[in-house]
């Protein structure tokens, strides 16, 4: 009985895939491929155009905005690097991204552990405030954030940037960690309690190592968001030495915008780290996006 059922099911499955193959006829296939190839070309062409143009002199670019350069000019890169002060900016970007990502992971993991496994009547209120924080658009509070940073004497300080970047990342972090830790068996905590471990030890020794998957997701989301962040750094900091990469790139669209070769080189410098990061971690990134999409 069982085996016949299995047999029919397999036969049906084979029939199903045959059906599928027959339906996607040649024409459909051609159309589908055309659409997907169009999208791919739409992604690649602007980027190729950008890279090619970054090797042209401004004059060569003005002569022909589409073709390959007659002479590949390498000077744009060192010059753009120097004018844009990219050394400092990239260091700042790395600093802001790494510290705020680490702090976000640590603080959301600890809060998530407390919300998920410790008893308190405050949990609904506090956890709820993080959930509201997820959905509140951060753009809406940039002016008060600027005023508050001024009043707290944190304007134009690295500490201020760090606090803001960590603060805005916490809601989604706490949300993801709480949900994940809630899914871990209570017995893990209980047995450690019986062995006499304190809650902080349990968190550090047992829970934190177990949250690796969600920590990776959060790290990926946070690194992409913080590295590309522009609006807040723009209002929190006015000193050149404290700014980050996107601010430096924008510099080339103002007064230097007619110096096309250097502008394009600057854009490539801004583009490259994220593209490399994406190509290395693309599976983790695309897995993390739906998780972070609650943030919208």
């Amino acid at each position, binding site marked *: 009985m069982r085996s016949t059922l299995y047999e029919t099911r397999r036969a049906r499955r084979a029939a*199903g895939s045959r059906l*599928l193959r027959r*339906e*996607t006829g040649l024409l459909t*296939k051609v159309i*589908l491929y055309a*659409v*997907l190839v169009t*999208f*791919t070309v*739409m*992604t690649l062409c*602007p980027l190729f155009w950008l890279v090619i143009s970054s090797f042209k002199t401004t004059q060569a670019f003005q002569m*022909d905005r*589409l073709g390959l350069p007659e002479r590949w000019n390498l000077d744009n890169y060192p010059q753009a690097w120097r004018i844009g002060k990219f050394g400092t900016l990239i260091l700042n970007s790395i600093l802001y991204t790494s510290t705020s990502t680490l702090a976000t992971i640590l603080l959301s993991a*600890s*809060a998530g*552990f407390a*919300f998920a496994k*410790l008893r*308190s009547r*405050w949990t609904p209120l506090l956890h709820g*405030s*993080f959930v509201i924080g997820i*959905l*509140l*658009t951060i753009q*809406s*509070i*940039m*002016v*008060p954030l600027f*005023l*508050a940073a001024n*009043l707290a004497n944190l304007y134009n300080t690295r500490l201020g940037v760090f606090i803001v970047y960590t*603060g*805005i990342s916490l809601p989604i972090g*706490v949300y993801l960690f709480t949900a994940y830790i809630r899914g871990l068996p209570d017995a893990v905590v209980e047995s450690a309690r019986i062995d006499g471990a*304190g*809650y902080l030890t349990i*968190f550090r020794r047992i829970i934190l190592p177990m949250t690796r998957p969600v920590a990776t997701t959060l790290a990926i989301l946070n690194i992409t968001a913080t590295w*590309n962040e*522009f*609006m807040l750094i723009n209002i929190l900091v006015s000193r050149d030495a404290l700014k980050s*990469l*996107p601010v430096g*790139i*924008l510099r080339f*669209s103002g007064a230097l915008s007619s110096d096309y070769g250097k502008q394009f080189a600057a*854009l490539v410098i801004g*583009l490259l780290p*994220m*593209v490399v990061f*994406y*190509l290395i971690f693309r599976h983790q*990134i695309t*897995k993390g996006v*739906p998780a972070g*999409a609650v943030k*919208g």
Partner: protein
Amino acid sequence: MVRRATNAEERRAYLILVLPAVVLCWAVIAFPTAFSITLSLTDYNGGPLFGGREVLRFLGLQHYGEMFRDRFFWISLKNNLFIILISVFGQIPLGFVLAYVLFRKLVGLRDLFQTMIYLPTVISTIVVGILWQSFFSPYGPFTQLMQYLEPGWENTLFLNPRTAILPVLFVMLWMYTGTYLIIFLANLQKIDPQLIEAAKIDGATEGQVLGRVILPAMSGVIVTSAILAISGSLKSFDLIFAMTAGNPARRTSVLSLYMYDNAFRGAPDYPLANAVSTFMVVLSLGLILMLRVLEKRFGGEE
């Protein structure tokens, strides 16, 4: 006795674990929100809040009236609406179709296509903005391309107040369709494959499978995505800042840029900026409420 000790320890641990995150998050999100709502009702315009020479005056809703009378506010709101439209009727359907094609394995090279469609999303918005601004500018290759088709074509895209928003909307479509592709793909993969198989065996066509099995299963996700797109429109700032900075004549402004302009460009008008900020907070809280109601109505995901 032992029980009480445990409780005290649990409370202490709870505080130590929760407090840093709560303090930081409230300092950065909750406090500025409350601060802004308060300030929007006063004449505070920068400087020290306490101990300053001038006393804070309470003005009520005066700045809101000012805001609603400003035509640039309405232009900005209208552009936010355009962004919602391009998301809901552009990004979401396109993302869905692409996700469906990849999910049903109707084509090969799926990994490559997925990677390429999502790539624009990870690039810094500032880079994307300047890149496309150069592309569409009168001095850019778009002009050259159009002149191949129509000699003597004049590029007034960014100069004409009526058309300046079009390149921006195009770039948004280009940039964010990938996000919806990934969201839909992840949720499509949660659908039980046997359901689709069974429908196929019963003789359903691909279109019927889509209409009767997949779309109903995805309705919650689609609704959620639409709401996310709507609240996401309030987030647009960087791209427009880099592409047009709201020009020409502030015709491509959005709410966040309108607020920024009032606070940081020219003479600062913080009271008005705070009123705009409050308006945006209310709008975004309203959207949360809408999300909750719609999620309940349509079953929602998860």
